[in-house]
């Protein structure tokens, strides 16, 4: 039976009380979004200092909102559960409250007592997930950006696997130039799944095996616990060949959002999607408005000089101020930032309340994921090469001041810095 440690989970409920479900004649669905925790967002620094990574704005709205919106659109979706190990915080609570209002659906945050892995998290909260007897439920990783073809996954399940099957969303690697010498597959796991409650039996089997194994071993560090289970490595591998696991291959867009740099890439994908989903979010050239090139999101509270030129792939947050003759391309400008006259911001993220002086140039090098390497990671080992910072997008943390006329190139500036000169290829503490 399920064991629960006394200091274990707290379920944070924002706003709406848990819904009780009546009829079993209507098929009912749920969705689980795995949002991770603060230790998981380090590659998103310095931006994750200010906001939990899942709430970082991508194409003008919090990353997570794209997931929630996609889930809420699925018919018979009754509840969305977020599972992670962030301490309850104001931003998350406020976000959940607003999202519930906007999407008219119950959204709850379930906090893990420790990082339990993608399988361990849902297993730990299986009672919450199966309550109300959903026929099936989606599991989505928060750090992916996707068109989320959830309805298509449902239809696929009906047509191919049947109600007892599990579906993994897969996508083909684009521009596959070099194939592995022993070809296995060119389909990669998108981190988006459709399960039915039977999945918990499979996870339970692994959980029990882990427990047995651990009884035979010396106690080790905290991570190595029986409850920590990864869907991908521990569950799917074991299930392969049983005829239960299906891949639904999508041609729609998908990308991971691991590093801060990939947020710009993800924004580009979502902004492009807005043409069909949210044309009202895309700025257009208007009399007396700034010059818009390509896909641009501008928050209505931003104040932009008509001589500025924005785009493609630009997101401008709340209360941002953009002066005369400013150029912004392939960038995210976070709320309260101030871009002064004639400055030029390319391939960069400008942090909350930061200031870029007149004629300053803030420039990064695009770090779009290598399409040949879907699991490419920008981790601390490859952040530097030959003692130099690998060229990447430029990130200004919160409340950074860039003086007039300098250049900040391929650099990361940590929060609350007043710079007094140019910097290139540096991390500025």
């Amino acid at each position, binding site marked *: 039976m399920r064991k629960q440690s006394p200091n274990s989970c707290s379920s944070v409920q924002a706003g709406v009380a848990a819904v009780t479900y009546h009829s079993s004649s209507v098929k009912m669905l749920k969705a689980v979004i795995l949002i991770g925790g603060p230790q998981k967002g380090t590659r998103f620094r310095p931006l994750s200092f200010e906001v939990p990574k899942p709430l970082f704005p991508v194409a003008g709205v919090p990353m997570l909102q794209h997931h929630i919106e996609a889930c809420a659109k699925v018919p018979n979706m009754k509840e969305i559960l977020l599972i992670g190990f962030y301490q309850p915080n104001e931003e998350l609570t406020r976000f959940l409250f607003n999202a519930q209002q906007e999407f008219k659906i119950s959204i709850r945050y379930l906090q893990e007592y420790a990082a339990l892995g993608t399988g361990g998290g849902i297993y730990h909260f299986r009672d919450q997930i199966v309550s109300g007897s959903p026929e099936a439920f989606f599991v989505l990783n928060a750090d992916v950006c996707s068109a989320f073809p959830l309805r298509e996954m449902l239809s696929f399940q009906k047509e191919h696997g049947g109600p007892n099957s599990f579906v993994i969303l897969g996508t083909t690697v684009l521009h596959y130039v070099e194939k592995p010498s022993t070809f296995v597959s060119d389909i990669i796991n998108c981190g988006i799944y459709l399960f039915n409650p039977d999945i918990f039996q499979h996870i339970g089997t692994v959980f029990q095996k882990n427990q047995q194994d651990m009884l035979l071993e010396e106690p080790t560090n905290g991570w190595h616990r029986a409850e920590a289970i990864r869907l991908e490595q521990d569950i799917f591998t074991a299930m392969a060949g049983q005829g239960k696991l299906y891949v639904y291959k999508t041609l729609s867009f998908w990308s991971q959002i691991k590093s801060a740099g990939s947020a710009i890439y993800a924004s580009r994908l979502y902004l492009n999607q807005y043409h069909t989903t949210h044309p009202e979010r895309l700025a257009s050239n208007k009399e007396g408005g700034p010059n818009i090139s390509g896909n641009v999101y501008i928050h209505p509270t931003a104040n932009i000089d008509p001589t500025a030129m924005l785009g493609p792939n630009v997101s401008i947050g709340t209360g941002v101020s953009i002066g005369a003759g400013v*150029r912004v391309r392939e960038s995210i400008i976070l709320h309260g930032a101030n871009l002064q006259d004639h400055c030029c911001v390319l391939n960069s993220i400008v942090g909350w309340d930061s200031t870029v002086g007149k004629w300053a*140039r803030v420039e990064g090098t695009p770090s779009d994921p290598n399409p040949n390497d879907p699991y490419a990671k920008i981790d601390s080992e490859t952040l530097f090469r030959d003692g130099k910072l690998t060229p990447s997008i430029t990130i200004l943390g919160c409340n950074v001041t860039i003086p007039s006329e300098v250049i900040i190139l391929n650099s990361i500036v940590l929060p609350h810095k007043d710079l007094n000169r140019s910097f290139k290829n540096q991390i500025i503490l």
Partner: protein
Amino acid sequence: MKALILVGGYGTRLRPLTLSVPKPLVEFCNKPILLHQVEALVKAGVDHVVLAVSYMSELLEREMRVQEQRLGIRISLSHEKEPLGTAGPLALARELLNVDNEPFFVLNSDVICDFPFKELLQFHHSHGKEGTIVVTRVEEPSKYGVVVFETESGRIHRFVEKPQVFVSNKINAGMYIFNPSMLSRIQLRPTSIEKEIFPVMAEEGHLYAMELQGFWMDIGQPKDFLTGMCMYLQSLRQHTPERLHTGPGFLGNVLVDPTAEIGKNCTIGPNVTIGAGVVVEDGVRIKRCTVLKGARVRSHSWLESCIVGWSSSVGQWVRMENVTVLGEDVIVNDELYLNGANVLPHKSINESVPEPRIIM
């Protein structure tokens, strides 16, 4: 009076500019380098200028015909078929220089200063010996060859190459005046005037030094060209401030050709020269630059320590710095960053140059 200007070869140090235009014709502060010297010589009474060149340029010949007319003087080209050093060209031009008994000027073509030819002539007459060289003070004499001379009389004792202990901080400024009798010291073969002729003249008490007042710069390479421009503009500020451009948006010493157009909300200066027919669009920031004839700088760009070549076009939101030199008719596309780029003529630049290099 006559003067010999040692123009020399291809001016490779000032490439890529000299790939399009012979060095004497490259505009320094909106006037060809050579004319700075020729006009100063004319003012001192020179009516025949001999240019010692080691390659022939039709462009140079044609321009000299124009200047002969304009200035009412004679300009000859003395062409050395093989390199003759710094003294050999005097022997080659002997026939042109030794027609009367008047002293003649000799100068290196790369030098910019407030040319003191009248004072030089006066001083030369006052001591009555064979030659006078102009010397200028430097901060670090150990890097140069210095001239040791009597402060009172100006009589030169000796020359010391890169002195390790202080003997003098005055160096040869590349401007001389000689009596025609001096020509007998030089053979028609490759000879260094500094190393082979001057020491002998000094030994014999025939060489005097006159110290230059004010600035001096060898502008033979882009970095020094810009430094020399700053000095020259400062000199204009002192002597003829009315030639400098002032008004809102202009800072410090800025020289603007009357045919240039400057847009709105620009900040230009300090130390900027803008040539004829140049168009600077709105919201541009330029400091410490020379923009040559017919060039265009588009909106919101930022330029520091650059030379923009003739008819070149710098796109919008471009940043150029660190002695970036654009040759003739170069196009820099929008939003690029050029750091110390040396761009050869007729090139279109499509990507940034984040570290100094030559763009062929």
